[in-house]
């Protein structure tokens, strides 16, 4: 299955893109998405445990992901 990974701000700069498709086995979790991401050039600039949202809600490493999900890797927020 495939999920869409969104990257923002410094993380988008690090990986050179703001969006990419990642292929995963079924029953995958957020941790699996991050493991796939680690293989990409520039991913060493991500912190060990970045914030993640699945379908626009904050999630944890163990959260399940499903085909077509939108998985966002979220740098430290700096609004206001």
């Amino acid at each position, binding site marked *: 299955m495939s999920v869409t990974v969104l990257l*923002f701000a*410094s993380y988008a700069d690090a990986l050179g893109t703001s969006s990419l498709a990642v292929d995963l086995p079924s029953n995958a979790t957020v941790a699996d998405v991050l493991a796939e991401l680690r293989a990409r050039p520039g991913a060493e*600039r991500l*912190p060990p445990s970045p914030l993640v949202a699945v379908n626009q809600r904050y999630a944890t490493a163990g959260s399940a992901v499903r085909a077509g999900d939108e998985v966002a890797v979220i740098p430290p927020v*700096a609004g206001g």
Partner: protein
Amino acid sequence: MTPVARLTRDPIDPTALLASVARPRHGAILLFLGVVREVNDGRPVTGIEYSAYEAMALRELAAIADETLARFDATDVAIEHRLGELALEEASVGIAVAHAHRGVAYDASRWVIEELKRRVPIWKREQYVDGTREWVDPTGRPTEAAVGGERR
């Protein structure tokens, strides 16, 4: 009573924010404006670019507005965050809250800005006098540039 929670690329209008929370039952209205200041951590700033995960930021702003009504006894609230390039002294965020009593208005206003800073996926890149730009990390973890410098 629909709370306002918006992202905008236009300048924030304090008068409109105040009007959106005014009701005859309120005795106190509080408006918070976060504005771009000329120095941050000792570095002279010339402007800030704000960007967001827009769909989620809107969802979180709306959730904060709804939670404000629940936590603070039907305080009226309007939250607006600006995106794009901002010059010095421009407002990046405007929060208007109104309540029958001022104590609740102060507490609610402060709660909204702290929640916004804690959980709304918005980022800012500061532009400095020397022409460089840097993403701001309020957690104090190594910045992008610093992490990049450690690249193996």
